[in-house]
């Protein structure tokens, strides 16, 4: 008879060994399945589950075919601050007329000098930090500027997905649709649009290639290229893929004005893209945005000239375009996709900057903030100089200076203000072209001081 302890020991041994073997097998199978999954993610990068056409506007339909890009696109609702930009969510009591319960912080409260610079213009009523793409339509529908000014349908060009509405309004002719909608009052035109910027605004639905759909840019870049001796420039057929990764953003992130009674959106680029070229353009056509309420000067409002300023900087010169930093490539499984969560590169330094600049994140961030801090210091000096000039003209006017004697100072105010606003309205606090930004602010300070000098009597004058 075999003694029970011996039997017990050998049973225990077998049980233990079996468990160990089973665990090994489980680990082996788990690894096998993981390898299988990894191999599969390297294949079939794209499933076409819906057909897209030139009239498919709703981004969620595109999202069925491109879920990764769509997920990121929806993240532009985020409100995150950087040191000199980005928006913060501020609660607000919604009213019937303005049903927003969350808005961005008010720039006018942050810097009340802006109200003086824009005195007499709608921007002095309500101007908030810009939010992400997801809010572009809502924030225009419900800004306080709508209550003090009658806006035209033109504004929608860059505050909604307009490709399909333009094609409809123009019976298949994009430019005609653009002209039709420009003419409508904003409150009427807004009923024709549904979405903020959507996939179809930048992508060809058949090939997914980038394409420019905004008439303002198609005409603006043609005028600019003509100034460089390139005639009949057709942006969608004559640009490289890398250029398109800047041009699709330049469709809207630019300086513009509304031309004539038709309120045709126009980019003032036929002399060039620098601030000097743009001001010269406005001087030639004698354009003004409004008459300054305190000084009577005929002044201009600059609006977010990101594309123009970037063009003067080192990144543009090195062939680095908007999407390289604001939509850098990222790896999802085996796929390399561009990040459609468009945002400040400062919130994504490792992908946006470190691909080229091999320095720690903190070092890169502090390099950027050094540039921005210097620009911000100069901006404040320029702002104070402008306010000094505005005060001087206002007092001179009160003392009964003639229009003729005020004219030189008013002209300097127009120049100083446009140069300052060109950097103030631009959304990189100088980073897109640091030296150019500081040069522009330096010129602005000079214009303001020259304006003050112009109001003084020459030394030696008896009267």
């Amino acid at each position: 008879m075999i003694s029970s302890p011996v039997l017990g020991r050998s049973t225990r041994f077998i049980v233990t060994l079996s468990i160990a073997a089973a665990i090994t097998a489980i680990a082996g199978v788990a690894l096998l399945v993981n390898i299988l999954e990894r191999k599969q993610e390297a294949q079939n990068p794209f499933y076409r589950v819906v057909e897209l056409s030139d009239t498919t506007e709703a981004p969620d339909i595109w999202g069925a075919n491109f879920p990764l890009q769509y997920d990121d696109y929806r993240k532009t609702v985020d409100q995150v601050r950087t040191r000199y930009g980005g928006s913060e969510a501020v609660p607000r009591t919604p009213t019937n007329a303005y049903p927003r319960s969350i808005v961005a912080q008010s720039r006018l409260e942050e810097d009340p000098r802006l109200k003086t610079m824009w005195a007499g213009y709608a921007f002095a009523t309500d101007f908030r930090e810009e939010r992400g793409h997801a809010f572009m339509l809502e924030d225009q529908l419900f800004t306080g500027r709508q209550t003090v000014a009658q806006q035209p349908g033109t504004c929608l060009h860059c505050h909604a997905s307009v490709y399909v509405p333009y094609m409809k309004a123009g019976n298949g002719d994009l430019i005609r649709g653009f002209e039709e909608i420009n003419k409508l009052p904003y409150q009427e035109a807004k009923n024709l649009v549904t979405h903020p910027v959507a996939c179809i605004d930048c992508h060809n639905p058949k090939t997914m290639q980038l394409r420019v759909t905004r008439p303002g840019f198609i005409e603006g870049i043609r005028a600019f290229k003509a100034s460089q001796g390139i005639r009949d420039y057709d942006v969608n057929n004559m640009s490289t893929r890398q250029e398109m990764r800047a041009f699709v953003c330049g469709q809207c992130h630019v300086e513009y004005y509304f031309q004539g009674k038709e309120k045709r959106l126009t980019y003032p680029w036929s002399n060039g893209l620098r601030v000097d070229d743009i001001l010269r353009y406005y001087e030639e056509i004698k354009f003004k945005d409004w008459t300054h309420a305190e000084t009577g000067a005929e002044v201009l409002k600059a609006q977010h000239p990101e594309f123009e300023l970037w063009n003067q900087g080192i990144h543009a010169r090195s062939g680095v375009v908007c999407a390289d930093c604001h939509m850098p490539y990222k790896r999802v499984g085996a796929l390399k996709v561009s990040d459609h969560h468009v945002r400040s590169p400062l919130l994504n330094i490792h992908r946006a900057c470190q691909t080229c600049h091999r320095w720690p994140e903190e070092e890169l961030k502090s390099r950027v903030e050094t540039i921005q801090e210097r620009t911000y210091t100069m901006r404040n000096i320029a702002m104070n100089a402008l306010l000094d000039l505005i005060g001087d003209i206002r007092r001179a006017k009160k003392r009964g200076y003639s229009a003729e004697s005020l004219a030189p100072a008013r002209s300097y105010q127009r120049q100083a203000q446009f140069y300052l606003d060109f950097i103030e309205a631009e959304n990189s606090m100088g980073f897109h072209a640091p030296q150019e930004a500081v040069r522009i602010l330096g010129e602005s300070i000079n214009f303001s001081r020259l304006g003050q000098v112009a109001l003084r009597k020459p030394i030696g004058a008896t009267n």
Partner: protein
Amino acid sequence: MLGTAIGAALGVGAYTFVYAKGSSYLTDNPAACANCHVMNDHYSAWLKSSHRSVAVCNDCHTPSGFVAKYATKASNGFWHSYAFTTGDFPNPLRIKPHNLEIANNACRKCHAEMTTSMGLHGGSISCISCHQFVGHME
């Protein structure tokens, strides 16, 4: 029963080894390094690089000497598979100091004629800090 259990474990292990092309890792074939798709970009960049016809991955990324080479392969092989399986690794990929030294020594081995006559600042400066794209972009 014991036999079945151990056999199953061994069988699964053997199949996984074959399925994951385990034996390819014992070769010098650069395609083996791109078995995991995470290396696809580096592999295709190497194919277009100035070194493609004179050096494969192992020439620069493993040290010379049979034991040192396979010890490096084993260590990197384990940690790379671990990172890739768990998905826990930084992007863009960054080389570890030890592996950087291996690559740097590889430059100096083949280009000895040039590098022996250079001071190289007591070894404080690496070849790759200037010639970073010779093997592959990024």
